[in-house]
């Protein structure tokens, strides 16, 4: 069997439409996804123009992740642009690397979603004091914990195996970030607020719970995902 055909498809960085096709969407599903994006319709109902609607099906879950990665990338970009007082060289190196991971996550989702992606969000970071280490690291911890809870809580909604696996590849990196932030804060790797002491499981959140928190950091139209119960 000639394997170079498949090897070439993977190595050439497939075009976005091919990505969706190979990820299991298939010709029919790709048509549905395109329709959902262009008309902002789901179930025949036009979505609320006062919100940023994440869409339906797997597109909604991917946009959900894309929104969070946008906020995290913007947050860490600001952290490095305006470092808190007495940030050590090591802290700056580590926070820069976290920033870079989030930028990669953001750009990956933007490419994968293509025409179905929500717009670039304008963050609202007025509640954060970027000059203060406690405020910055406390916010970083909250963002990372939120990201993990979000991916864990939305995983079962994903219908395409390839997307589930990609989400799985990212969530563990966010959990690594979360633990490192706690190291920098001199804290344990988890506490009862995010880890259930009775069974050792991370406490996940529903999309509705996540968006309620995320929207505090979004300027302009809030995020909404009626298709995900949010």
């Amino acid at each position, binding site marked *: 069997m000639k394997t170079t055909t498949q090897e070439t498809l993977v*190595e050439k960085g497939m075009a976005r439409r091919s990505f969706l096709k190979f990820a299991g969407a298939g010709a029919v599903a790709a048509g549905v996804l395109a329709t959902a994006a262009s008309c902002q319709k789901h179930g025949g109902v036009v979505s609320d123009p006062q919100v940023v609607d994440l869409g339906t099906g797997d597109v909604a879950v991917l946009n959900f992740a894309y929104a969070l990665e946008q906020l995290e990338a913007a947050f860490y970009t600001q952290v490095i642009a305006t470092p808190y007082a007495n940030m050590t060289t090591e802290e700056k190196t580590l926070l820069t690397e976290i920033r870079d991971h989030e930028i990669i996550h953001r750009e990956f989702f933007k490419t994968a979603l293509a025409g179905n992606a929500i717009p670039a969000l304008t963050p609202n970071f007025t509640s954060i004091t970027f000059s203060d280490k406690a405020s910055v690291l406390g916010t970083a911890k909250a963002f990372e914990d939120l990201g993990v809870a979000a991916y864990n809580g939305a995983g079962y909604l994903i219908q395409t195996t390839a997307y589930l696996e990609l989400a799985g590849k990212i969530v563990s990196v966010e959990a690594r970030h979360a633990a490192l932030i706690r190291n920098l804060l001199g804290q344990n790797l988890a506490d009862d607020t995010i880890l259930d002491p009775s069974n050792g499981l991370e406490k996940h959140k529903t999309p509705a719970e996540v968006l309620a928190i995320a929207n505090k950091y979004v300027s302009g139209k809030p995020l909404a995902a009626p298709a995900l119960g949010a």
Partner: protein
Amino acid sequence: MDLLNLINDIQVADPEFADRISPRRAAIKNITSFGSKVAVAALPFAFSTLFKKAYGQTATPSVNDVLNFALTAELTEASFYNTAVSRGIIPSTDSAAIGLIQKDENNHVNFIRGILAGNESNANKARSTAPIVACNFNTWFDFSGGAKGTVPGAGPFADVFNSYPIFLAVAQAFEDTGVRAYKGQAGFLKGNKTVLTAALDIHSVEARHASYLRRLRLLRAPSTVPADFRSWVTGDMTTASGITVSTAATAATNPIYFGEANVTQGGVNIGGIVSTKAATEAFDEPLTSDYVVTNILSNFLKTS
């Protein structure tokens, strides 16, 4: 041979074939999940799996298979930490963290047992998590990593319960393995709200463990890791493991980090967005259960 045309041709001959490969599209999934070198090697195997599925044999594990595999890993970790803590090698600075990790693994064992109930495998039922009083091995585990050898406890990590740096290295190895093992099973639990969510909730805790332990290696045993060793997984092999204490130790743990240098995600090359290093770190890679058992756990699980 063009794979897609072949599938079309088979569809004409067997109209149910497409239903069997869709929605998972197992062969395609395997191509997009890994770098191209692994995809090429995996392709013939994945394709033959489709035929096995179509004509009677089961290639996909059941939920109970997944849970028993997870339970084996958790039993190994629980026994490992129970032993280490009982031996008093954890410094007081780290007793809260290691104690939490120990508690989590024992909780995971109990939680998974609760879901499996009567479907727990006999092998798992037999494995004790009681602390090993002396030595580094017992009837079920060899934490020196010498389970495949002829002399028990003589593996590359013989000092695992005497040396805190060696303990931390083995702990990191177990946690990074656990992350990749759970990740490799997620696809088989697709859409299963209860079990998939529980697996994801455990998977992220293992990642927190792994991250925290990597940081501890840097802080407590700096001479054993590179100066730029990270809580995330950089590149592959020893760049990823930071385990170079001996040739045998490296050989035992390199398989845990195979494929982690991958920079192709969903068919998209992400190496140019920021840097190759950042790209290898931004995504953790899965491992199949067969790979984990054959190349990693078998060094620590006794077969008798």
